[in-house]
Every structure is written in structure tokens, then in C-alpha cells.
């Protein structure tokens, strides 16, 4: 069962290994695999016909469309911010840098509900800009722009957080060499930096995209949940579930679960790829995103 070939003094007794393995697998099976399996079992409980009907009805289709729109808007903005932030923080020294780096961790520790609430306080009818927005017949909260703002708040750190350690480890020697050879700033970025960070970018982008498509708490506060208009997929799942349309809720949920599985698969692929590249170039493994190390040893 446990094929680690080690001298006995460096390994636990066989029965201990078996128990530890069973405990760990039991825990992961119970809390990780079983919920995942439940999504698909419940989705197909009433058969294919109902499953297909649930994901193609007009409300579901408009929810899918809105989720895709929100993701399509937040991804480029997050990419731009991530690259700008990482460039500023890793290529230059300045005062307050640590504060700036800490700030981008904020959305990870702030509750998504709080993230939604702040935009209601700003743009809601009682909010600071509420009267002005009403006078100009604009709507942000309980409309699509609010959903996008809340999604941006919870997803902006992902790409920056992948790029900063990566670019820090790579240093700026190559960029400086390019500069002395007369390259312009844009050329340096496009020809030197971008090829070096491309896997980190892909990695951050898929994580940020998964969160953008799957965000629930922040979005549910600002969306107002108007069916067919401001409902994202996760909100659509909630409405169906609360209306006791369990199979339909799980059918839409299974699409989101597939998205999550695809995200994990691409993530693993990128980890192997960048770990492989890192070995090829004989760059220390620390230059790969942190989690890549798991991938590196898994392939080894």
C-alpha cells in the first residue's frame, strides 16, 4: 500500500502508515470528494432531459451570459492591474512598498458580504452618490455595474499575487541588459519580461477567472437578484434552490463545478509546464509560483 522504500529507522511502522493514510484519505474523501460527487448525482437525479432543460431555459441562459460578461470585463482589468502592480513593486524601491503589498491581500481576509456592502453604501439610493446617480438616471447597485464592481473587488489580487514573487525571484538583470542595448520600455516588457512571466500570468488569470465566475457573497449583496437581468449563475443557483427546484439548482451548479474542475486541471498543467521550463533553464525552482513545487515533485 505504501511503497516508500526506506530503512525502518527512517519510516513509521507499517501499521502506523496504514492508519495515517486511511485517516487522511477518509478526511479528504468525506469533506472533499463526497460534496463534489453530490453535485453531479443530484444534478442527474431526474434524468438528462430535465438537466438539459434546466440549463437551457431563458433565465439560466441569461444568468450564464451575465456571468460570462462579468468575467470578460474583470479579466483584462485584473491583468492590467496585476502587471502594473508587480512591475512597480518588484523593479523599484520606494517607501510604503510593504504597505502596498499588504493592501492587496485585503480582499482575501475581508468578508465578501462586506465587499458588497461598501458598494451599496457608496452607490445605493441612500449612499453618497445615490442622489446624484438618481438625478442622472444611472443605476450601479442592484444593476450590472454593481455586480462588476463587487467582482473586481474580490478578484483584483490574484494576478498580482502570482506575479510579485515570480518577478522578485527573477530579478531585473535581463531587463537592465535590454535597457543598455537600447530597448524602449515597451520593448523590454514585451520581449524580455512577458516571456519570463507568461506562465505566472496564465496561472493568476485562471484563478482570478474562477473566482470571478463563482463569486457569490459580494455579488448577492449588490445584485438585487432581478431574474433574467442581474442574476449571475451562482445567484440563479440560490434562487432555484430556495424555490425547492433542487434538480435544476444542481444542474446549473454542476456547470460551475465543471468550471472548477477545468480550472484545477489547467492549473496543474501550468504548474507542470512552468516547473519543466524552470528545470530546463536551470533557474532555481523558487522562480516558479509557489504551488508549482508540488507539481515539480509530482512529475519527478
Amino acid at each position: 500500500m505504501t511503497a516508500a522504500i526506506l530503512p525502518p529507522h527512517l519510516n513509521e511502522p507499517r501499521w502506523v502508515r496504514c492508519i495515517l493514510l486511511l485517516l487522511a484519505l477518509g478526511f479528504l474523501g468525506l469533506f472533499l470528494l463526497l460534496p463534489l460527487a453530490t453535485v453531479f448525482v443530484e444534478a442527474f437525479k431526474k434524468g438528462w432531459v430535465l438537466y438539459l432543460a434546466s440549463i437551457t431555459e431563458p433565465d439560466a441562459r441569461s444568468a450564464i451570459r451575465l456571468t460570462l460578461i462579468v468575467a470578460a470585463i474583470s479579466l483584462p482589468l485584473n491583468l492590467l492591474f496585476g502587471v502594473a502592480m508587480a512591475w512597480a513593486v518588484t523593479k523599484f524601491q520606494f517607501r510604503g512598498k510593504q504597505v502596498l503589498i499588504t493592501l492587496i491581500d485585503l480582499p482575501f481576509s475581508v468578508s465578501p458580504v462586506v465587499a458588497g456592502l461598501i458598494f451599496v453604501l457608496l452607490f445605493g439610493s441612500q449612499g453618497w452618490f445615490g442622489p446624484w446617480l438618481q438625478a442622472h438616471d444611472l443605476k450601479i447597485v442592484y444593476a450590472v455595474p454593481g455586480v462588476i464592481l463587487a467582482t473586481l473587488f474580490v478578484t483584483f489580487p490574484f494576478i498580482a499575487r502570482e506575479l510579485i514573487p515570480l518577478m522578485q525571484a527573477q530579478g531585473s538583470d535581463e531587463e537592465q541588459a535590454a535597457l543598455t542595448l537600447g530597448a524602449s520600455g515597451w520593448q523590454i516588457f514585451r520581449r524580455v519580461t512577458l516571456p519570463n512571466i507568461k506562465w505566472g500570468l496564465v496561472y493568476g488569470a485562471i484563478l482570478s477567472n474562477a473566482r470571478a465566475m463563482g463569486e457569490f457573497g459580494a455579488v448577492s449583496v449588490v445584485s438585487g437578484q432581478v431574474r433574467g437581468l442581474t442574476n449571475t449563475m451562482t445567484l440563479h443557483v440560490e434562487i432555484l434552490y430556495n424555490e425547492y427546484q433542487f434538480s435544476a439548482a444542481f444542474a446549473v451548479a454542476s456547470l460551475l463545478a465543471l468550471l472548477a474542475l477545468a480550472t484545477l486541471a489547467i492549473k496543474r498543467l501550468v504548474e507542470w509546464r512552468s516547473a519543466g521550463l524552470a528545470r530546463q533553464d536551470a533557474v532555481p525552482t523558487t522562480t516558479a509560483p509557489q504551488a508549482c513545487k508540488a507539481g515539480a515533485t509530482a512529475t519527478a
Partner: protein
Amino acid sequence: MVTASLQQTAAFTRRRPRRHGAGILPGFGLSLGYSVLYLCLLVLIPLAALPIKSADLGWSGFWAAVTAPRVLASYQLTFGASLIAALVNLVFGALAAWVLVRYTFPGKRVLDALVDLPFALPTAVAGIALTALYSRNGWLGSLLEQGLGLKVAFTPKGIVVALIFIGIPFVVRTVQPVLEDLEREIEEAAASLGAHRWQVIRRVLLPAILPALLTGFALAFARAVGEYGSVVFIAGNMPMVSEITPLLIISKLEQYDYAGAAAIATVMLAMSFVLLLAINLLQAWQARGREGRA
């Protein structure tokens, strides 16, 4: 460019040891300016709305709003359930990391990849799946209720279950790389000096992974405190019994009590800052430990 050269002069006059050549590359003003502007517009100004809006209540009103019995009960539940869930994840996360690094078994790579599932799976999906699993008609719920007379869904126990799920990756993913980096030679040396396996684990391995363990624990706890999506479905949401703090903010909002919602959110924001600080300190400790070993 001017800012960049000013920056250089400033750094030079302060005589701080600078990394070689940092500061001669172009784009400092543009990249920093854009990042700071973006952060201000999207994060700082909106977050400032919280304390300012809750100031509408006045100090005594604020205090009354954040210490009402129903609010206090929700803090107790949120922090208590988060603490239990983070402790469970501390023990089983360390165990899972150990098993994933040291042992081989069929399906290990797939399982290793799936550990990140709670990051990738939308919380609402996790919430309804766990509720279906643990409710009276669910696979586990029916077993637990008939076998042990235990009700999990729609009680505080259900909240703990949901928080365990969303916290799984944190401890595993912080401990795993540290375990992989550990050199077998240290264990070899300890064993050759006559240490039993258990002594090696307790005296050599455990101290080495302790900073990572605590970091993972703090991350899982911080995430659990703010969690909403996976909890609301399974919690039952009864005031005083199974109502978490984020939900209380939403119910204040639904009653158009904006200042009250902002007051509770301000308390949660302050907690986030404290946890963020603790996590940063732990990570600095962990980084020092790694340098020391290298």
C-alpha cells in the same frame, strides 16, 4: 522619469542598501501611479465608507449596534465555529500534507490536485452540496441521524462542516512545500544519534513545520470568519442560534438599516486587519525559518 530619478536620489541620500540597479528601469511613475489609483478607487475609498457611514450612529449608537445580544451571539458563533473548523483543518491538513508528500498510493496526483477544489468551487455550489449531503434525506445526514441521533444540517454543526470544507487547502498548501524541502539527512542524523521515530517527528520535524502549520491555521481561520456562501444554505439561519455575522449584515441591509450594517461590517473589517497582521507576522517568521535552514 522625474519621479524615478527623485526616487533614486532619495534612496541614495538615505543610504539604504539598495538592490543593485533597481530604479533605472522605465515605467515607475506609470505603473505605481496606475496601481495606487486603482487601489484607491476600488478598495480604499469604498472601504472608508464603512467607518464614515457608521459614524452616523454616534459613539453610543455604534456601541449599541455592535453589542446587541443578537450581534454578540453571532460573533460567538462565527468565531467559535471558525476556530473549531480551523483546528480540525490544522490536524487533518497536516496529516493530509504528510501523506501526500511522504507516502505513495493510487490516485495520489488526482487527489493532490483536488485539494484546491474549495478555492475553485463557487461557495454557493459547495453550500447546496453540503446541505443535500447532510440534510435528513441526504446520504450522510440520514446515516448520522438514524445511527447517532445527530442533526448536522440547519444547526451550528452544519456551519462547522461548511467551514471545514472551505478551509481544507490552506493548511495542506502551506505545510506541503515545507515538508518537501526538508532534508532527509536531518532525520537520518537524529536517528543515528539514537532518536526513536516518534522523537524524530516530535523534536525535529514538528518544529520545522510549526510556522507553516500556524500560518495555514490563521489563513483558514481568517477565511472562515468572513465566509458566507457555503454557510447560509446549511446553517438554518436562526437568530441567536445559527446566524453568522455576515448574514446579520445582510439582514440589517434588507431592513434598510444601512448605518447598523456598516457598524457591524466595521467590526468585521477591523478583525480582518488584525488577522492580516497576524498572518503577515507568521509568514515573516516562516521566511526567516526557511532562510535559516537554507
